[in-house]
């Protein structure tokens, strides 16, 4: 009984550690990958696939190992040691890869570098799950129920980890303190599992592990109570930030902020991207007419009661959703509401006075067309950064060089940079003619005025920015992006239909393929689960902007849902008689959920008030997790009837679940959500599950 309780605690700690490690590494990687939320899909996907590999390939080895508990302890100790090392590695990784200081990364290096960074910890974590299932079944003598129970305990640990991480850890501790603290926790857990290892009757291996656990506990404790953790932190930062001296480092709720000083210049980096470079001048910043509001821009526009003459949107690229939400149709409408009658909205976009490639044309057309949806008058000032001035008053079109020069003279303004010659040069009509000709030359079809509208839940601005970014690092991938831009819902529906048809056709006669009906249901559910997570994550970021703060909570609530779903199902396993029928009902529930999800985004709940709206997100995360989690134990029960090897079944279905999640992360994060938008992605999920349901009903019932 005592060992059973300690083991349950060990599994809770496993879930807790996994959650914290995943989110902490994700946040660190967001900085080196420049804040792009789409990389969340890649990172989460890589985590899942590595867990799947660990669970299936390494996890299966438990059957061959005799001292199973000791093997579990070895894994825990390795995770304790490797996690802080991985934090350090993340910060210096680009230097190791030979990436020049200040150089960006393409999608492919992001894919494999996140894979390599996550590999040690997630591989071991996956293996630990399978080990835990086996050990628990030996302790309790319950086979199918063990898998479900371990799944539940682990996800409970994840939930606790998510809440603790968001509210207790990140507000007060930096990454090394958290990772070393986790190391201490796991070392102590190992000591608990090895209880009384020093006694005479114990094996020398157990004694050795006990000594190592004591040693690790001591080292981790010392590192936390001495300046060692802080020194590690500062050392790694100085390796990461070679561009200058770090004046300030902070993790805000919106993201990571670093201020670098070089010469007289201060550069503010947000999630690794330089956003402002300025010499700080007390005079300007403390001028009575300057009010600095440290708040999300979109939130400010929503809440303010003032009317403004000019609203300047200070963004340079739409490379992530947090920025893109400041250039959507919905946001432009909000800004129009706070502009005076002749007020002007100004936004910039990347440009060139030499040549506009297709990707740049798309970005600029997207901004231009989106602005024109909301403002009847738009003036363009082309340059290395194009300026778009939008207004509901036609007077904006009167902004010509002669007017500005006249006003400069009338106000007797002395300027060094904005001289009359420069104004004449910059506002010369030949640049606008060239720009408009370039846009016209680059247009593919006459429908360009209708398409390319950048919306909150169909972030085409980010898609085009990503395509533009890709041309810098992987020009051969241009064709892929251009193909993606043309992608339609019909393509996916046809592809899925074809797949389903072939599965049914060959599965009808092939026993092995028929047996794949249940694993396919799990894989597609894993895919759906990841997409639900990403949809809710992205929607949260679009509406609130502080995903960086809530990512742990959202992910853990989802996992809590899977845990509760798993627990309820595990308890009902004995009572459920018609397994396939019950699994089909769960499949149908997922279909209904994915069809209803888009309507909830437009529901009144999202606009009632922040607290209520955030609650809606948590509820949605929980429900989606609940549906996903409930399938797993039931699928195991069904599959064990035809494949009695417990660790094999657990490993395979767990791996299938995670592999589906990986696909969802890679395809969904980078592809579906940007290309089709949230609405159509939900339709894809629903259709995929319809296919899965049909396969289950037709083939699953024939499996004996």
């Amino acid at each position: 009984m005592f060992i059973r309780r300690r083991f349950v605690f060990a599994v809770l700690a496993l879930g807790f550690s996994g959650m914290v490690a995943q989110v902490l590494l994700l946040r660190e990687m967001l900085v080196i990958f420049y804040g792009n939320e789409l990389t969340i899909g890649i990172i989460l996907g890589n985590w899942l696939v590595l867990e799947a590999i660990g669970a299936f390939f390494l996890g299966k080895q438990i059957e061959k190992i005799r001292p199973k508990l000791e093997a579990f302890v070895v894994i825990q100790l390795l995770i304790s040691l490797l996690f802080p090392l991985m934090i350090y590695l993340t910060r210096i990784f680009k230097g190791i890869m030979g990436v020049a200081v200040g150089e960006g990364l393409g999608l492919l290096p992001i894919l494999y570098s996140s894979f390599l960074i996550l590999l040690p910890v997630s591989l071991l974590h996956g293996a630990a799950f399978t080990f835990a299932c086996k050990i628990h079944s030996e302790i309790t003598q319950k086979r199918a129920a063990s898998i479900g129970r371990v799944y539940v305990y682990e996800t409970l640990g994840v939930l606790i980890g998510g809440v603790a991480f968001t509210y207790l850890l990140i507000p007060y501790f930096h990454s090394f303190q958290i990772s070393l603290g986790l190391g201490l926790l796991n070392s102590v857990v190992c000591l608990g599992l090895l209880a009384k290892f020093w006694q005479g009757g114990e094996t020398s291996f157990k004694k050795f592990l006990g000594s190592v656990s004591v040693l690790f506990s001591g080292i981790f404790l010392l590192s936390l109570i001495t300046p060692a953790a802080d020194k590690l932190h500062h050392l790694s930062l100085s390796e990461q930030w070679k561009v200058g001296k770090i004046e300030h480092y902070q993790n805000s709720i919106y993201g990571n902020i670093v201020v670098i000083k070089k010469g007289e210049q201060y550069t503010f980096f947000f999630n690794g991207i330089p956003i402002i470079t300025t010499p700080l001048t007390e005079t300007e910043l403390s001028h009575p007419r300057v009010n600095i509001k440290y708040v999300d821009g979109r939130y400010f526009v929503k809440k303010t009661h003032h009317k403004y003459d000019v609203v300047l949107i200070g963004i340079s690229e739409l490379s992530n959703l947090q920025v893109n939400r400041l250039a959507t149709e919905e946001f432009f409408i909000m800004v129009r509401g706070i502009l005076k009658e002749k007020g002007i909205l100004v936004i910039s976009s990347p440009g060139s006075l030499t040549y506009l490639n297709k990707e740049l044309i798309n970005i600029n057309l997207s901004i231009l067309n989106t602005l024109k949806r909301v403002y009847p008058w738009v003036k363009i000032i082309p340059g290395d950064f194009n300026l778009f001035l939008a207004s509901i008053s036609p007077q904006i079109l009167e902004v010509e060089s002669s007017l500005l020069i006249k006003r400069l003279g009338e106000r007797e303004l002395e300027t060094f940079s904005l001289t009359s010659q420069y104004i004449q040069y910059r506002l010369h009509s030949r640049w606008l003619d060239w720009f408009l000709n370039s846009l016209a030359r680059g247009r593919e079809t006459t429908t360009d005025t209708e398409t390319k509208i950048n919306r909150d839940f169909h972030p085409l601005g980010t898609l085009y920015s990503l395509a533009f970014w890709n041309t810098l690092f992987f020009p051969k991938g241009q064709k892929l992006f251009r193909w993606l831009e043309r992608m339609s819902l019909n393509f996916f529906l046809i592809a899925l239909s074809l797949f389903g048809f072939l599965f049914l056709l060959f599965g009808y006669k092939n026993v092995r393929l028929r047996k794949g009906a249940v694993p396919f249901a799990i894989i597609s559910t894993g895919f759906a689960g990841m997409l639900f997570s990403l949809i809710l994550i992205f929607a949260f970021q679009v509406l609130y902007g502080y995903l960086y703060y809530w990512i742990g909570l959202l992910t853990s609530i989802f996992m809590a849902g899977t845990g509760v779903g798993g627990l309820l199902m595990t308890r009902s396993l004995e009572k459920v008689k018609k397994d396939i029928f019950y699994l089909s009902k769960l499949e149908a529930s997922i279909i209904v959920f994915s069809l209803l999800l888009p309507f909830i985004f437009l529901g009144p709940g999202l606009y009632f008030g922040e607290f209520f709206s955030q609650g809606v997100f948590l509820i949605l995360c929980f429900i989606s997790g609940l549906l996903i989690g409930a399938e797993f134990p039931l699928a195991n029960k069904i599959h064990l009837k035809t494949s009695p090897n417990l660790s094999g079944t657990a490993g395979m279905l767990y791996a299938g679940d995670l592999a589906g999640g990986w696909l969802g992360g890679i395809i969904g994060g980078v592809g579906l959500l940007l290309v089709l938008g949230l609405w159509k992605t939900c339709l894809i999920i629903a259709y995929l599950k319809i296919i899965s349901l049909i396969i289950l009903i037709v083939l699953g019932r024939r499996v004996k």
Partner: protein
Amino acid sequence: MLFPDEGHGFAKPENRAGTLYALTYGRPCAKSVEPIEKAPFFHFIPGHRRLCVATVGCNLRCKYCQNWHISQKRVEEVKHYDLSPEEIVEIAKKEGVESICFTFSEPTAFYEYMYDIAKLAKENGVMTSMVSNGFINAEPLRQLIKVMDAVKIDLKGFSESFYEEVCFGRLEPVLNTLRILKEEGKWLEIVNLIVPPLNDKADEIKKMCTWIKENLGVEVPLHFSRFFPAYRLTRLPPTPISTLEKAYEIAREVGLNYVSIGNVRGHKHNSTFCPKCGNILIHRVGFMVLSNNIEDGKCRFCGHEIPGIWK
């Protein structure tokens, strides 16, 4: 041309049965009329307008290229015009520009096209200039500069490691190009784009300035230009102005007479000063000329001869 490696550069001609064909010939992708100071050329008929022409291609792969949209592309990847050398010269005459400038991408990547245009331009009384990375062999260079009035070379850094790691090229051929241009008596100006922390070390800048003084002379204008994030180096801050000013001081201490700071509009050292009397010769804000105190190639105040092409 020099191609550092197989697979590097985007300027390779097509080999058809043993004959190399320049695919960029007659296919410019960029043409515009701009002030000469934007090159920057500060001693080449100040304030005059030039017709800028470029095709795709470059034999280097600098990670901070401002015109990567065309320099790092192949002909088939970019929309282009179809303009013969005759048509280019006609456009120049129609626009009333004083010179044609081969710039934006790497002009030696479209060597034959540039050569034919330049030759025709000279015959029609239009001056010519080139803005190049200098990564070219001696023989074609000597041939080319017979039809060039002025050349601006980007001396990107002063270490082989910088050239290899950031530009995928080599320093020595560029230095060789500079020596040849000096030898041939061609009007030469040099730009050094300072990219902290990659090539901003004071000792490296001093070495560069010393080399220029010893090999090219103190009269060659040197422009220190401020870096802004571009192409793959978008996660670096711009060059601090104090770094540029420090580089300026180093160059002046070494003894170079004509040093300027570029890409910092409104800075005092956008302007040219007389090395003898210290008065302002050409007052510039950015690339706009506000006043010109050079008369017949001499300082209006003290009569000191100022090197350059003034008409």
